[in-house]
């Protein structure tokens, strides 16, 4: 093994193509952290139709999903959810891309893209089913054109590529969009997905949210070059955008979607952002993360940035702020109600949907278990939680 005490991925990484986690000059930005609108010769085109009203609605979306996130975290703390993966800090990446999609596009995401699910129109109770431990899947993927969120890191990128190959075969102009993290780029699946996507010029957008951390591992452990640059080796065009800039994210996503729709094949987008919260509610980031880093990123907050722009335009009125807050509160309380009134699953439900058609093999086990439950006098199984002993 290396004798270098920093070890693989240690702090002393050679300066090959800049700091993979950094914010180099090639980072696409349309809104400065101060809120100032930065004009861009190429990318302004992709958001030229965005009216002030639409900016306000992006502001509302971001505020709402942050509120959803805070509420879900609270629900977890109150014992209503078993676990929750916060998206705090990643609102612009999720809303900017999510609002760029068409209804017939199809999303394959990781567990953290709850803001994208919101854009797809997910029922908020469905959003929580899995995290409450009440179901294996929260929604019907075909209902909102978004697959069940993936926990196996990177697996969904292959699914997106396959879906895109299907779109291509069908002669349609929809796009498959896959979301994953910086850590995921190290997995074989993600690399194989890029090989296939490039080989077949599949209409797929690889949307990598570089939130700088894979649980405790910094992005520089996954890569010594900027993540966006990895795509080059697969022959996939790349874009590197400020992931806390909702307009930049939207512009990049629109460009990539347009390219895919017109037969131009895959695009890789690296949205450079930051996970402000813990990895999940079970994680303790103080063990591995410097508080100063958090502070630096707080100054680049995606919502205050858009608020800054609205303010400069003179449209951040008290009325707008109140309206947005009311909406966020209403959505949060609707979600809370959905969570706490969700019907409990019934014991025999565990045997449902293992196969699409019944078979005697499993039916026998099911029948035996029903008989077992009946010995407790309740066929629906008000058995004690003895199993977990």
């Amino acid at each position, binding site marked *: 093994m290396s004798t270098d005490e920093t070890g693989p991925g240690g702090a002393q990484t050679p300066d090959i193509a800049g700091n993979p986690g950094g914010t180099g000059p090639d980072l696409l930005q349309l809104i400065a952290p101060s809120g100032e609108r930065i004009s861009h010769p190429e990318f302004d085109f992709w958001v030229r139709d965005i009216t002030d009203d639409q900016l306000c609605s992006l502001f509302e979306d971001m505020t709402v999903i942050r509120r959803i996130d805070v509420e879900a975290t609270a629900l977890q703390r109150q014992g209503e959810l078993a676990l929750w993966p916060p998206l705090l800090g990643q609102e612009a990446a999720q809303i900017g891309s999510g609002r760029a999609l068409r209804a017939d596009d199809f999303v394959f995401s990781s567990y953290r893209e709850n803001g994208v699910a919101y854009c797809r129109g997910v029922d908020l109770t469905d959003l929580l089913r899995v995290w409450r431990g009440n179901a294996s899947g929260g929604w019907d993927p075909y209902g909102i054109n978004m697959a069940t969120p993936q926990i196996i890191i990177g697996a969904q990128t292959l699914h997106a590529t396959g879906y895109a190959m299907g779109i291509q075969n069908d002669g349609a102009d929809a796009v498959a969009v896959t979301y994953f993290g910086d850590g995921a780029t190290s997995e074989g699946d993600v690399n194989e997905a890029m090989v296939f996507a490039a080989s077949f010029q599949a209409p797929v957008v690889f949307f990598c949210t570089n939130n700088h951390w*894979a649980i405790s591992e910094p992005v520089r452990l996954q890569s010594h070059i900027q993540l966006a640059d990895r795509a080059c080796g697969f022959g996939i065009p790349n874009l590197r955008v400020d992931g806390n800039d909702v307009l930049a994210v939207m512009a990049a996503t629109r460009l990539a979607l347009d390219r895919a729709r017109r037969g131009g094949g895959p695009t890789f987008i690296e949205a450079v952002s930051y996970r402000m919260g813990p990895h999940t509610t079970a994680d303790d980031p103080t063990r591995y993360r410097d508080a100063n880093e958090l502070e630096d990123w707080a100054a680049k907050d995606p919502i205050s940035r858009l608020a800054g722009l609205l303010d400069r335009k003179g449209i951040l009125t008290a009325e707008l702020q109140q309206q947005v807050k009311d909406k966020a509160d209403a959505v949060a309380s609707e979600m809370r109600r959905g969570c706490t009134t969700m019907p409990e699953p019934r014991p025999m439900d565990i045997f449902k949907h293992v196969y699409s058609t019944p078979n005697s093999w499993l039916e026998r086990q099911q029948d035996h278990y029903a008989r077992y439950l009946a010995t407790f006098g309740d066929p629906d199984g008000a058995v004690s939680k*003895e199993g977990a002993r």
Partner: protein
Amino acid sequence: MTQLTFARAINAGLRKSLENDSKVVLLGEDIGTLGGVFRVTDGLQKDFGKHRVVDTPLAESAIVGTAVGLAYRGYRPVVEIQFDGFIYPAFDQIVSQVAKLHYRTRGAVRMPITIRVPFGGGIGSPEHHSESPEAYFTHTSGLRVVTVANPQDAYTVIQQAIACDDPVLYFEPKRRYHDKGEVDESVDPRSALPMDKARVLTDGRDVTLVAYGPLVKTALDAASAAADEGISIEVIDLRSLAPVDYEPVVASVRKTGRLVVTHEAAQSGGLGAEVAASITERCFYHLEAAPVRVTGFDIPYPYSKLEMHHLPGLDRILDGVDRALGRPNSLSGLEG
């Protein structure tokens, strides 16, 4: 003697191995600064350095595949798979490479790789975090598969696994990580009970109850509940799942005439089937009843609200014991 949790006991065993053999290196996701998501490797990187306790990129196939290369080079890699459900990306490296290299090279190459896998359910986790994948590996020749059921074993067996020249899958019962027990850290793993031996935990005359890993505790609880009803159960902790140490099981079944095997993994193709078949072959004329399996169902691991229905608990095990004894039970009156 000290009181240690499973997690601390494994930590202490890893520490001993790192101290005793400079060729031991630890590899895995989050095992360094964070000390692993279960803190099993807590403090080890700080004390042994980043070249011996390596935080790896997120790539299970690469973690195991590079361990193969390290082993070729004379190292003894100890790999952490973060959760049971994440071992599958590394499956090919484990079953096609790790398991077979000794055989393929006619003994020239040793693969002293230990693959640590937190396994099993009961902690209220989302999907892919509660699986019992041991049968995939017991089905692959060339691998040793072990699991531990008390902190003392956790401490000694991890050292035995690391010292073993064969590849070892070391399954850690994650729902027991915080359970405490006496650990004698002065025990020499070379003179302790070898990791491939089963252990008889209680002396019983009516039924032999075979368990391993997280269910050993449940099996012991069942035995003491049964004792209150005058039923005497001999509990055997299998410890090694590949190879299985059949002698104590055979001796026990010859005495009791009845066998119950329990595990969390699904029933079909599971280890319980293997044990039942082997014991039937060896003890057919001593068996008073067909062997009974009390296992997880043939379903994907269910969502956490209902996991206790899938996991064999004390009452389900006792119901199985009743079946073996021909006492009234949930299947009484059913044919076949």
